[in-house]
């Protein structure tokens, strides 16, 4: 039986995101009110991983996309992306979605 793919997507309704130089700033919204006490900043790599989840995507799709722009071996990148997903899920930045 084919294993069901897991998709993740940026929770764009709950965050305001902006780029500043190579960094990304994310301000969470709680009931539409900005929660300035929990602002997140992402470095360039974090920002690029996040941008890859603007549309729903699987980990493998994101890795394939990022391998085109980063000179890194696939296992290392996979670990980075999985770690990112774990932390981003914990903060509500990305959600698992059904396609």
């Amino acid at each position: 039986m084919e294993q069901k793919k897991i998709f993740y997507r940026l929770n764009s309704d709950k965050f305001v995101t902006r780029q500043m130089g190579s960094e990304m700033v994310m301000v969470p919204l709680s009931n539409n009110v900005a929660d300035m006490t929990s602002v997140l900043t992402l470095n360039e790599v974090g920002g690029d991983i996040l941008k890859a989840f603007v549309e729903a995507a699987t980990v493998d799709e994101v890795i394939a996309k990022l391998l085109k722009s980063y000179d890194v071996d696939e296992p290392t990148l996979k670990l980075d992306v999985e770690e990112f997903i774990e932390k981003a899920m914990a903060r509500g930045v990305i959600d698992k979605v059904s396609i």
Partner: protein
Amino acid sequence: MNVYLPGIKLNFSLRSTKLFLEPLGSALYDFPLTENYVEFHCFYYLTEKTDLTGFSEVLSGKSFEGAEIPYKWAILSRDGYSGIHVEFYDDPHLLRAFCLIDFHKNTLEISLVPKVTGNVIKVDPLFQPMGSILMVVMAHQQNDVIIHASGVDDDGVGRLFTAVSGTGKSTMAGIWKEKGAKVINDDRLWLHKGNDKWYIFNTPMPYYAQTPSFVELNEIFLIRQSLQNELKQLNGANAAMRFMANAIQHFYDKEMTGRHLDRILDIASKVPIYDCGFKPDVEVVETIRCLGSGQ
């Protein structure tokens, strides 16, 4: 009667014979502070009941613990209109006040409910807390920022010192005054953009008249008390976010937050931000002045 704010002219008129406007904090703001400004017509009247029909509350707050005249406030919204409602718990003259804001026609309608119907009411046109909340709403509308900070004009160099309450904003302003700088304000500043530069302005204060003044914003300091004076320039998003932490942020939707974030990042990209540990004496003035001379 007119009161000027950064980029704004408020023209006041009365619609009740028993209501009088007596400027206190806003008394000296009677000339344009900026080359260009948008004019708002503000109508004041007395009523028995504030009409909030159709409005829904989007944000609310209350006076700090121990306030002399406790109150609660709410920002309301209805089909493109905004409103500010204030309920006083122990004001000798007023029960409630409501300001209906129409940003399409640039009008403000301010209705006041007196404690005793028929009594003569005298208020500052920017009475507390309506004036403060209104300034935050209007500043946002024109993409400005209001921040908890002190600011000084040091021979044409504008410096802003921001921190949470009790960390030394007023102390810092006092030190600069001692060394010959002009204090713009020691508690709250209005940051207004003109000709692609940011300026710091003071604003009418609730309980005392101050002279309007402003200066271009050249340096920002995130201050903290320390055993020694130490300065470190901060860069990137972290600097911008630490600066933003002390801005007044009565925002209640994604678009507003996005616009606020844009202007904070704009300021951070134009004005250097420093982490500034300081001991409360005049030495810090020379330490900071040396930044500009590259020493």
